[in-house]
């Protein structure tokens, strides 16, 4: 043992010199201990810049050793005041802002917003337009769930499924590119329809994606579904009882993972969902693993819906014929007097809905995405309230994290799948 060797050396020759830090190491009280370290609470600040918080979510966690005693989420780091901004935008002007709410599935937000405005002004759009909207909303769901799955699996250490999910997601972004000309900030819907028709080439591209996706999903699931590490990291983690889930106003996959079969596509049908055949996957475990399975099975259902839509979609008009509410086609604006006037009026003064209030919601990938409009008859909304699913779902984070381990916080955030653009508005 070197210690004794040194001591022996020192006894033989006291002038021998060693550095003070080595002397300190060999004195008796070298064991630096913290008194009752496990009894002391420690406050840990996680975020807002933290790779596992999926955005700028800040969590203040008080810890007992490695166990979370309490967790306080702090929001507002991405607050851009969209509800205030909406009060000075016309109804059309606000559409690009909806892209930036849930920026992982912009198409679904576009659809939700357009439907809400149409409900306010009592406008029904032709069937082709409705089918197009279902197609893009389901693509958005796949897009969002793929990232949720991939990121959650990456949070517990598996990197490959994340890369595979991103690969599939990239294909959807390319589809958006051919459908509307933008990959990310789509702004595709308009009041009374969509910006432009989906061409046959785009339909063919969607069909190729749909046909290939199932096989790719099977491949991806083979890596995760029966993976011992993944299951042991997720099973029973982040449990929240059914009563709490309902009382906390959860919607979407979180609610369906606790045994409540609620899906607005079936319960408050909008667009053409009542003509389509799909299931609503429900689990009862209410833990991270159940949430993962709900999302995966929703992917399969979305593919089913897409296949039906591609078969059923009719030809014809895709925009409503209401010249005072719906923007005319650009080529007609440039050549026809009437259309020029309507275009000018809609752009400058807005669609002027009747005085009143309206609420409309769709089942977005994260839950109920709703818009509450209060109109005073002018071209701008008097008040727009965005009911964002991420905001409500984040409220469940604190009770889910109680008494879990610090390493599980990451997978719980992944299973809630918050998007801060939407939660902070």
């Amino acid at each position: 043992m070197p210690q004794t060797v040194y001591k022996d050396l020192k006894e033989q020759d006291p002038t021998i010199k060693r550095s003070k830090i080595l002397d300190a190491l060999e004195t008796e009280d070298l064991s630096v201990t913290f008194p009752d370290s496990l009894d002391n609470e420690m406050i840990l600040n996680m975020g807002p810049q933290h790779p596992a918080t999926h955005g700028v979510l800040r969590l203040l966690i008080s810890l007992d050793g490695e166990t979370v005693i309490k967790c306080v989420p702090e929001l507002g780091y991405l607050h851009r005041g969209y509800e205030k901004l909406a009060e000075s935008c016309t109804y059309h002007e606000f559409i690009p802002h909806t892209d930036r709410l849930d920026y992982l599935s912009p198409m679904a937000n576009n659809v939700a917003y357009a439907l809400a405005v149409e409900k306010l002004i009592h406008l029904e759009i032709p069937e082709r337009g409705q089918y197009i909207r279902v197609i893009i909303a389901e693509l958005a769901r796949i897009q969002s769930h793929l990232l949720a799955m991939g990121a959650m699996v990456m949070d517990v250490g598996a990197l490959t499924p994340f890369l595979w999910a991103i690969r599939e997601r990239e294909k959807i972004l390319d589809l958006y590119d051919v459908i509307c000309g933008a990959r990310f900030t789509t702004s595709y819907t308009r009041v009374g329809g969509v910006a432009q028709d989906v061409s046959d080439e785009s339909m063919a591209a969607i069909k190729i994606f749909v046909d290939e996706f199932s096989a790719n999903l099977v491949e991806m699931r083979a890596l995760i579904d029966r993976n011992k590490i993944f299951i042991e990291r997720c099973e029973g983690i982040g449990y929240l009882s059914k009563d709490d889930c309902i009382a906390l106003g959860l919607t979407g996959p979180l609610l369906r993972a606790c045994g409540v079969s609620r899906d607005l596509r079936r319960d408050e049908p909008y667009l053409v969902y009542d003509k389509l055949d799909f299931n609503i996957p429900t689990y009862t475990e209410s833990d991270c693993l159940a949430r993962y399975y709900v999302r995966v099975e929703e992917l399969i259902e979305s593919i089913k819906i897409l296949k039906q839509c591609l078969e059923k979609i009719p030809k014809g008009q895709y925009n409503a014929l209401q010249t005072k509410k719906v923007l005319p086609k650009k080529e007609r604006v440039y050549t026809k007097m009437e259309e020029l006037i309507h275009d000018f009026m809609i752009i400058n003064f807005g669609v002027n809905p009747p005085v009143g209030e309206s609420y409309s919601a769709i089942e977005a990938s994260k839950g109920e995405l709703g818009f509450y409009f209060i109109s005073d008859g002018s071209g701008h909304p008097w008040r727009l309230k965005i009911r964002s699913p991420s905001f409500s779902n984040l409220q469940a984070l604190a009770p889910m994290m109680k008494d879990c381990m610090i390493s599980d916080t990451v997978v719980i955030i992944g299973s809630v799948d918050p998007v801060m653009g939407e939660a902070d508005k």
Partner: protein
Amino acid sequence: MKDDRLNLLKSKLQSSNFNIEYSDVNGTPAMYLNKDEVLNVCKFLRDDESFRFISCVDAVSVDRFGKKNRFEMIYNLISIENNERIFIKIRLDSKKPEMESLVSVWKSANWYEREAYDMMGIVFLNHPDLRRMYMPEEFEYYPLRKDFPLMGIPDSIPLPNK
């Protein structure tokens, strides 16, 4: 909600002697509640066997600038077993907008009411944790009020010295 169900709800509330004004949000039933009866009516809506509005999914704060009762709160309730939705509205005072917090009835109202407090300055009595939701604690204004300018108020959040 179907008409017969709405009539049943109305008669049940009538028999409990609640003073309620019924209205409509574009096809969805809504009701204006008296400020003093809010808690009792809400507990009734949540607990009544045939309705069970057990989940509050949103709360909207409104500034009806220029009206007699300037502020208003709108709660968005759903019943999961009956698949029904209803809005309850509470008119609030212009000078001193405050009402009883509904956190004791629906837990989810916690953050929704914090958001309303932050954005509109509505004070919820007996709220367990009434802090600002988005804005910094030292911010003095309520940004969604109609008298708050769109571009903000300069120096409302003190910046560090150069």
